[in-house]
């Protein structure tokens, strides 16, 4: 069939059924930065393989900014305040700061296995997730098991695997995993972080993606949450990370909170200024390893305290797996 009239009818009806989105265009400064990054990646492709995302982002951004400063300087100046005092004050609410300092002390006394470059960090959780349709109300599903294997290699084809709903879902970006960093924290990357809490905050905030509209504090809080909840962390770093959270404005303590399977403890929470979502890390007193996480949306009422749970986890097991898809202590042969 090749009928232009029929094609026209089909396409024009589809145009009304699924209106073309009208996303914000690529800003000139972003286009210039992207162009520099992809061209540099192409020029460097003859040498050792590297990702275009790795191209010295800060320097590149600075260069592009200079190039187009006359045009669009204002939004960037206001969105990324970069001058910080050398030692950051404690900004978390006092009760949260005390709880975090307690966690920092407990963390120092903990032990974690070392994780090698060929190993996988393995975490098994019970998860309650939002099963509601995209853009509609929250419908919490039944608790179910979720397993994750996170590759520790520098540049694997896939950064890991999630096993959930009876299926395996490879974790990868658009084609290959990004280099270890705040968005893909490996044990080695975590171990390389500075142990000075102020420098951790500065390091994380400096890695916030260009153009991200989250506050730097929220970005740092989320990244530290990823690191402490679904990874293994050397004790000294775990301690420094909890100290670092005390430097973040808006962090508060929730006295009594449960994880996805009802284990009770206290919560360390922060509400994202842009989205109104609240993330709560749940801790059992006396342990610096989180029990799980809870996520809330704002509402349903306009009361700023009103929150609707849209997801929760309870971590059941953390360990080091030597093979993708095989839990620690399980034999690959036994599965076949």
């Amino acid at each position, binding site marked *: 069939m090749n009928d232009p009239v029929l094609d026209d009818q*089909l396409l024009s009806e589809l145009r009304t059924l*699924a*209106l073309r989105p*009208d996303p914000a265009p690529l800003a000139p400064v972003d286009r210039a930065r*992207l*162009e520099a990054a992809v061209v540099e990646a192409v020029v460097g492709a003859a040498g050792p393989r590297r990702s275009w995302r790795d191209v010295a982002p800060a320097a590149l951004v600075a260069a592009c900014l200079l190039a187009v400063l006359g045009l669009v300087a204002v939004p960037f100046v206001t969105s990324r305040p970069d001058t910080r005092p050398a030692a950051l004050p404690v900004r978390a609410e006092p009760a949260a700061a005390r709880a975090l300092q307690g966690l920092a002390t407990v963390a120092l006394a903990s032990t974690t296995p070392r994780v090698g470059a060929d190993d996988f960090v393995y975490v098994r959780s019970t998860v309650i997730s939002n099963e509601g*349709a995209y853009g509609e109300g929250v419908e919490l599903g039944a608790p179910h098991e979720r397993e994750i294997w996170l590759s520790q290699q520098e540049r694997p084809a896939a950064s890991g695997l*999630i096993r*959930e709903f009876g299926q395996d879902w490879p974790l990868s970006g658009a084609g290959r995993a990004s280099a270890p960093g705040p968005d893909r924290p490996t044990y080695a990357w975590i171990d390389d972080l500075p142990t000075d809490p102020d420098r951790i905050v500065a390091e994380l905030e400096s890695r916030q993606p260009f153009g991200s509209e989250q506050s730097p504090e929220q970005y740092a809080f989320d990244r530290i949450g990823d690191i402490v909840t679904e990874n293994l962390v050397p004790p000294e770093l775990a301690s420094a990370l909890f100290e670092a959270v005390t430097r973040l404005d808006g962090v508060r303590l929730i006295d009594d909170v449960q994880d996805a399977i009802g284990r009770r403890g206290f919560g360390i929470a922060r509400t994202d200024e842009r989205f109104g979502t609240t993330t709560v890390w749940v801790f059992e007193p006396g342990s610096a390893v989180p029990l799980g996480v809870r996520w809330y949306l704002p509402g349903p009422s306009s009361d700023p305290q009103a929150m609707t749970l849209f997801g929760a986890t309870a971590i059941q097991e953390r360990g080091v797996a030597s093979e993708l898809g095989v839990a620690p202590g399980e034999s690959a042969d036994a599965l076949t």
Partner: protein
Amino acid sequence: MRSDQHDEPGRAREWRERLRAGDVEAFTELFRAYADQVHRLAASLCADAALAEDVTGETFLTAWRRRDTLHTGDESLGPWLMGIAARQSLNATRGRRRQLSFVSRHGHRLLADTPDIADDVTARLDGAARLDRTQRAVAHLRPRELEVLALCVWSGLTPQEAARALGVSAGTVRSRLFRARARLRELTDPAEPAHGPPPRPRPVLNARPALEEPR
């Protein structure tokens, strides 16, 4: 909007030859000519500014890696790039949507991220209606239906161009468009329940060495 507004036949032929020869200047020119169009497709499918930028970058790098597959005719390079962009976007959002339903790390970002719309009331209403329909399409269509929808309906490729870009027949593109229409009609029919069952996580598309440009 036509996809070949940038490269008249002579230009396209020259670009093809220079790209095949590994000419970085030609690649830079191609980026300048098509970055906005590729980005709009990516942002339409991703609804997340940071992700759309990543996908835009990946699209051009993928094009560069596949420059050997370009033939030497004078056909516009637009449809080929848009085909790569659609596939890259769907790969990226599949992971993202999975994360959302898994309440994984960045789940809340997609939930709260919406394409930016102008700030006056009319535009906001239009934007809300637009977004609602678009979100239905994104949530309920199969990836391959969404792919042809994005190419033919949102980016202005003809079914023939989309077919060549995706390495399938024009008939296949049309049948995906028909299925998309049937599904969307169902969703917008007021006699139907307000919303269907929640979308389940989707299996990853069959791996396919796709998007080499057919001769």
